[in-house]
Structures are given as structure tokens and as C-alpha cells.
């Protein structure tokens, strides 16, 4: 009994990464040397994408702060971020002081911000809104594939690497539903043997059993193929599962495994109460964590000479404009999206501010940019798939945050 020959493919991306690595060298790479290292030679649609989903509904205005707006301070008497504390972006917006490393990336032109993004469906249920975002839709009727899956299926070929799409968790994200994505909770446990280390005879046995066409068998076979291709790659042993997952993703992107898209999640953004202030409390802690996850990840990619990865950060909705009675924010609408890395036109805040109006009985951050315009830009600039393919019927308006 032999395994299927492995499908080690050099997908788009790896050659670019190698070129970039050669250009800047893998040793002694610093932020400043990469500051102006535009992904030279990387034509539109030859990049790779990481999608970070902040589960729970991240507050826009605590992260990307409209610090010149009096109405913002009036709406949030105890939780607003003081103007003198923000890290200025463009004279109109500032970042929360807990994200200094993201601010440095912004200043270096490697991070861009899209303010006031939303889904026209304006679903304020976590689960309804997450489904719509991940399906890239304004209604779930008739939709069967995630938005990233649609991108990947549009350019799929039989030689696709088994690693082409990954969720950095054992359960694959809905945005990849409809494409054969891998769930890799951690590299360290992605192999046969468990704690007993018993592997003798296991692989041919499983390979035989998982040989058919039922979904469970196809998935099992892909797991075996992936184990085979992964070989002896050392994964992270960090205790923090998010830190570990980002470190593992950097490792996977660095290998010639054909990774093109990865999704990853962080939790805890449902800040209904006691958000705290600019210097202390749950929002500060969440953002400090995000700052370190994202900046560490980018630094890790830089150190490895992986220069073709674009990272986008999203959430299911932004929160209310007005703070509630318990020092927090209930579910709202407009969110801030962050884009970092290869294809970003960084150092700029995109999107349009509008003063909030009462709608459905409450004031939300006005969503002035359709999320499909941001996702469509990523689809085109990073994955090389036309936005009209991914979002048929939507009149695509480029945002400009990627190209």
C-alpha cells in the first residue's frame, strides 16, 4: 500500500518570496530596510493573503479614533480615547495608544486603514453578521461558498497544493466553505503518533480506509497528504494559542508548500461592558494583544524574507456610536479594517466619515464603504480574481487600499 504521490506544487507566491528574500537578504532585515521595499516585480494578483477575523465585533472608534470629532467625545463620556493620547494617522484619525507597533507600520507605509466599512445588510447578530461577512454576501439565500472559496475556485487547478488554503484552527472557517481547505490547529500536533508516538502501520491503514469519495474520506486523504508534504517542520510551542497560530502561519508561508490563503481568528471583542480607558481595561488589553500578534507576524515574515503576504483584519460589525449604561458598547455597524503587508497602499486612511444618525432607534458608526469593495480589492490585487466574479451584481468601487 503506497500513498498517493505527493502534490508538491510551487504556487504563485513562493517565487516572489524567494526573489524578495534574495533582494533584501534574509539576515539583518530591519523594518527600515523594508519600509520602501515595495513588492517589486509582484504583478497584480500574485500575492498571498492572510485574513484575521476579530470575533465578537471590534469597536471601530476605540481602535481607529476620530479624535477631532466633538460628537465622539459627547457620545462616550467615560470610554473615549483622549485626543492627546492617540497615535495620529492623518490629522483626522488616530490609533489607540495600545497599538504603537501598528502605528510604526503605518508610518512606514506598510499598514493602511479603511474607516467606516459595513455590510449593507446591517445585521447586528454576531452569528448572522459573521455568516454574511464570511460568505461575502448581503443575504444567505442561495449562497453556498465562502468568499475566499469563491476566489480560490475561480483559479483552481488539479495541481493545487493541498496547502493552498488553511485555517489556523482545527475547524475550517466559513469563508473557505466550498473549497478543500486544511484545518491546521498547530503544526506540532499535525502528524500521526499522538502522545504515544505509535506510527507503525498507521499511515497505510488510514490511507486505505480513507480512499473513497465521501467528504470524510476526501478530508482524511488530504490530511494524510498534508502530513506527508509537511514533513518534519517544527511548529511553535507558544502557550498563547493565537501567538502560536500566527507563528505557525509564518512557518507555513515560508515553506514551499503552496500556501496561498490563510485565515485566523481572535476572540473576545464583544465589549458590552467595562471597556476601560486608554490606559487600562479590557479594550486596551485586547488591542495590545492585537498589536503584538500582528506586528510579530509581520516581523516574522520579514525576517524570513517572505514579502508577498498581505494581511487584512476584519470583524463582523463595529459597535454603537454611543456608550451604553455599563461602560461598554452594544452591537453596531461601521468597522475599521486594517490592511498590512505586501500589496497595501499604506500610510493612509481610506473611507469617509459621516456624523451618525439615529437609525432603528440607536446611533451607529455610519458605514460609508461597502465591505465588498474592500474584499473585492483584495481579491483582485492579491489573488488575481475579478471582484465581479466574487460579488456578481455588486457594482464594485475600488477603495484604493491595495493595488
Amino acid at each position: 500500500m503506497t500513498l498517493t504521490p505527493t502534490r508538491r506544487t510551487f504556487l504563485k507566491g513562493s517565487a516572489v518570496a524567494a526573489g524578495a528574500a534574495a533582494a533584501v537578504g534574509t539576515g539583518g532585515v530591519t523594518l527600515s530596510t523594508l519600509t520602501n521595499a515595495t513588492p517589486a516585480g509582484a504583478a497584480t494578483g500574485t500575492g498571498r493573503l492572510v485574513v484575521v477575523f476579530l470575533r465578537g465585533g471590534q469597536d471601530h472608534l476605540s481602535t481607529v479614533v476620530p479624535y477631532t470629532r466633538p460628537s465622539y467625545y459627547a457620545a462616550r463620556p467615560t470610554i473615549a480615547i483622549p485626543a492627546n493620547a492617540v497615535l495620529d494617522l492623518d490629522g483626522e484619525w488616530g490609533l489607540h495608544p495600545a497599538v504603537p507597533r501598528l502605528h510604526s507600520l503605518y508610518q512606514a507605509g506598510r499598514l493602511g486603514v479603511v474607516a467606516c466599512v459595513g455590510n449593507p445588510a446591517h445585521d447586528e447578530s454576531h452569528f448572522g453578521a459573521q455568516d454574511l461577512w464570511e460568505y461575502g454576501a448581503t443575504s444567505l439565500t442561495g449562497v453556498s461558498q465562502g468568499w475566499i472559496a469563491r476566489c480560490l475556485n475561480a483559479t483552481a487547478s488539479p495541481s493545487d497544493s493541498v496547502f493552498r488554503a488553511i485555517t489556523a484552527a482545527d475547524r475550517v472557517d466559513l469563508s473557505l466553505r466550498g473549497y478543500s481547505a486544511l484545518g491546521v490547529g498547530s503544526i506540532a500536533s499535525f502528524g500521526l503518533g499522538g502522545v504515544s508516538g505509535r506510527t507503525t502501520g498507521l499511515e497505510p491503514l488510514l490511507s486505505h480506509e480513507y480512499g473513497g469519495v465521501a467528504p470524510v474520506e476526501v478530508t482524511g486523504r488530504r490530511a494524510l497528504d498534508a502530513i506527508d508534504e509537511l514533513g518534519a517542520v517544527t511548529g511553535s510551542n507558544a502557550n498563547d494559542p493565537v501567538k502560536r497560530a500566527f507563528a505557525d502561519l509564518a512557518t507555513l508561508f515560508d515553506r514551499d508548500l503552496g500556501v496561498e490563503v490563510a485565515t485566523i481568528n481572535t476572540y473576545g471583542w464583544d465589549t458590552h461592558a467595562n471597556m476601560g480607558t486608554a490606559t487600562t481595561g479590557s479594550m486596551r488589553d485586547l488591542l495590545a494583544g492585537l498589536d503584538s500578534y500582528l506586528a510579530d507576524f509581520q516581523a516574522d515574515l520579514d525576517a524570513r524574507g517572505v514579502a508577498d503576504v498581505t494581511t487584512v483584519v476584519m470583524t463582523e460589525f463595529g459597535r454603537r456610536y454611543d456608550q451604553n449604561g455599563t461602560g461598554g458598547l452594544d452591537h453596531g455597524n461601521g468597522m475599521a479594517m486594517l490592511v498590512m503587508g505586501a500589496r497595501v497602499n499604506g500610510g493612509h486612511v481610506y473611507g469617509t466619515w459621516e456624523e451618525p444618525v439615529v437609525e432603528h432607534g440607536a446611533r451607529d458608526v455610519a458605514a460609508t464603504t461597502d465591505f465588498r469593495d474592500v474584499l473585492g480589492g483584495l481579491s483582485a490585487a492579491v489573488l488575481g480574481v475579478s471582484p465581479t466574479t466574487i460579488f456578481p451584481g455588486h457594482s464594485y468601487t475600488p477603495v484604493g487600499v491595495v493595488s
Partner: protein
Amino acid sequence: MIDVTGEAAEDTAGTDATTAPVASEPTPTVDRRSLLRRPWAALLAVAGGGAVLAACDITSSPFRRSVHMVRRLTYGVTPATRIWFEAHGEAAWLDEQLDPARLNTSAVDSKLASFRSLSMTAPELLAAYPDTGSAAIAAGELRIAAVIRAVESPAQLFERMVEFWSDHFNVTAQGRVQQLLKIVEDRDVMRTHALGRFKDLLVADASSPAMLLYLDNYLSKVGAINENYARELLELHTLGHDNGYVYDDIVNTARLFTGWSIDSATQGGFLFRTANHDTGPITIMGWTRPSTGSGYDHGVDFLHWLAMRPQTAEHVCRKLAVRFVADDPDPALITAMTNAWLSNDSRIIPVLRAMVAHPAFNSAAGKKFNRPLDYIAQMLRALDARMSTSGSVTQYQAFGRVLSGLGQVPFSWPAPNGFPDTEPEWLSTGGLIARWNFVGDVLAGAYPTITFDGGTFRSGLDGRTAAEIYDRTAEALVLETMTDVGRSFLNTQTGWTDGYRPTAAEINAQLPVIGIAILASPDAQYR
């Protein structure tokens, strides 16, 4: 979850993005290359969806109906369950499962007595576990207890319902106080009301300090409300997403529950804070605040009203059917269950009886994908395994990492909607690898806190032919027999032929391979 290479999405520009964005997935032919023969699966599939007479076809094969029923309503078939079920029959077995007081759970109860946190009150817990490290150990006892109860308790359907409600009213055991209050909630809310009336469970949950803390309602005051609990009460706990309420209803629900709080003297008990309660007129959908009674009474009245909404009945019954029957349950089944709910004052037992009695209950036999806890419990029950409560913290932490790798550490789901329930949510590469490794590790005796008597399924194999050994092992572990293909493949692994009678030493050497082949198989991922 299938290979869709070449299925490029067509450019359908001009059509509504909401209705036709992509080519739909091709439907695979489900043709698992089974090691195991399931002659009865086809029978049940035909019977499903038919009239009551079709169910009689199943009773002509009572053993297979019993296997299906026990698999679905329990965490797996043990040798003892089989003997009992076959002696007394389906009706008697179900009666007993629905009346867990009749079941002798003393063995598992006395074993769990060594997890001291499980019997403590909130003030006792807060005093005994003063920091995050110790609270995590207490919560660890609750998590391990859930696995032990799934594997060892005779009150199997009760434990399944406790798990169902723990998902339905999810509280993430995270952070010191919330972890400790979850221990109280599990005992005093979920375990107290698991087979009772939904309306009582709903009130108990609404006044549970763990839930009040988790969804912030304990802070909500008149003129300074927090919508978190109110929204999830309507969306998740009762009516269903966007199912008949508007934003004003959420706000008014939040107003109605102002003052439902936690006693700050101990942080551990429910307290209705009259001064914080909004006493104004409130109308929520078709419900209007009564003119008499206390603000607390009005909240209870509204919860009772909500519990008997047809939308609530339909929403919760559908979730029950997804848990116990099929990922996409027959609408007629949901209707039957919903009717039972509405005509029995939201009592759960008549709903479960309606579900089991409905022909559609049989329709997806062998096709419901096991969640991780289902999978490991099914296997450990087949092995008649015992789990120790006297292991070291290090050993339990190691086992916790295994559960984490499998994807289901009890009470750890990070959002109010609970662990998901369907195959597309759970079937993944990493998940299967973790399952395979678990099988290998258990059979290798790699977990010091899990023991089983290998002799139980080793016995009776001496002097048998290879074919008989395969069949008997499959029968013992998963109540199936081998297909020709399965036998032929196992022969390539063992070096035997069907008619060969291996020596005792050869059986000992090959039995783990046979066991792994059966327990790690695609079939074993389903129930």
C-alpha cells in the same frame, strides 16, 4: 468540504449577488469504502420519512433499531447497555432513560465526589479558589467531569441533554469568577432542569449568576441598560435569529431585565435589585407588562410567554433534531416535536418522545457526524473504559490538551451560541488527525487516567479464524461486521487469510492494528 477543482465560479454579473453568486458544490456520491458492513442502514433509510408502518419494518429488525436509538440518545453502546436493552426492549429502556432518578448513578457520583469543587456553593468556591490558577483547576474538574459522565454515567440521555442545554445557553468558562460560577450553573441550572420544562430552565438560566455575568445583565440598570443578554435571549435562547422581533423589542427586553443581578455580598447569588429596575410600561412583541406583581414577576411572566411562542418551540426543537437526528432534519419531524412542546407546556420529555417515535428519527442512521466528545465517549464506552478522578493536575492538563486538539474542551466555546453541531462545521483535516491519534494513544494505554480491560474484547478470540476475529472485534467495538473488502485489507496488514487460525501470540500482536482500523475508520466518525 470536497474537491471542487475546476469548478470555477461563473461570472453572473447582473444577477442578484444574494441569490446566485457562485456555482453550487457538486454533490458527491456518498460511497464510503467501508470496512464495515451496514446492511441495516439501507433498511432504515428506506423506512425513514415513511408512515408508522414503515417503522414496523424496523421492529422486524429490533436489534438494529436498538443500536440506532442507543447510539443517538447516548454517548455510545456499552456491553452492559446492549444486554439490558435486548432483555427489556426499547420502550422500557427509553422510560428509564427519561426518568434518571430510577438509574443507579452512585458509582460515577461517588467517583466525582473527589472533585470537591463540584458540590460547592458560589461563596465556597470563591473562598476556596482565590486566584486564576486555582480557579482554572476547579473549572478543569468540571470539564473532566463532563467527559467522565458522558463515558460512565448510566443516565446517558440525561447527560446528553445537559450537554445540549450547556450549548444552547452557552457560558464560556473563562476568567476566575465566571469559571467558578459556571460550576454552580452546571449543577443548579443545567443538571436540575435538563429533562424538565423549558420555561423553568429559561427562568433558572436568566437568573443564573454565570449567565448574568457572561452576558453582562448584572450591570444593566434603568436608564443605563446593556443589550447583550436581551439580544441573545431572543436570538439564541428562544425565538431564533431575526424571527419576529425588531430592535425596539431588544431594548424593551433589556429594560424588563434591568435589576436582574448578582448579590455583591458574595458575588454568588441571584439578586433582584428593585432600585435598578425599570418600572415603566413595557410592550415586547405581543406581550405587555401586567399591571400587578413585582418587576421580577414580570420578567418571569415574559420568559414563560416566550417559552411558549411557536417560534421558540420550533427553534429549539430544530436544534434538538439537529443534535439527535440529522444535520438537515425533516420538517415533519420538527412539526411533530413543536406540537409536543406546545401541547405539553414546554416539557422536554414529550418532545423527546415525539422525536424518537417519528419515522424520520431513523432516516439518517449511521450518518450523523460525531462531535469530538461524541467520538471519544463512543470509543471509550465500547472499550468499557474507566476514567480516574485521582490523576495529577499535570495528567489532566495533558488530557485537556488532547481535548483542545480534538476541538471540544467542555465549556470552552468562545461565543454565546455554543459548540456547532453539523458535519461541515466539524469535519476537518486537523480534527481527523487528532481523532486518529486519540485512538492510537488510548489503545497504547498512553493516558494514565484512562484504563480499560483489554481482556474484554480479547476474550473469546483464541482458536477462531481470522475472519471471525475481525467480525467479533468489530461487533464488540462498533456493533458492525466486516465487509469482504475490509477482511481482505486487514489480511494484508496481519498476514493472515480468512480461514487461518492465528496463535494467541499472533492475536495479541495484531489486535491493536485491528482495533485502530475499526475505531479510526470513516464509519466510526458517524453514529
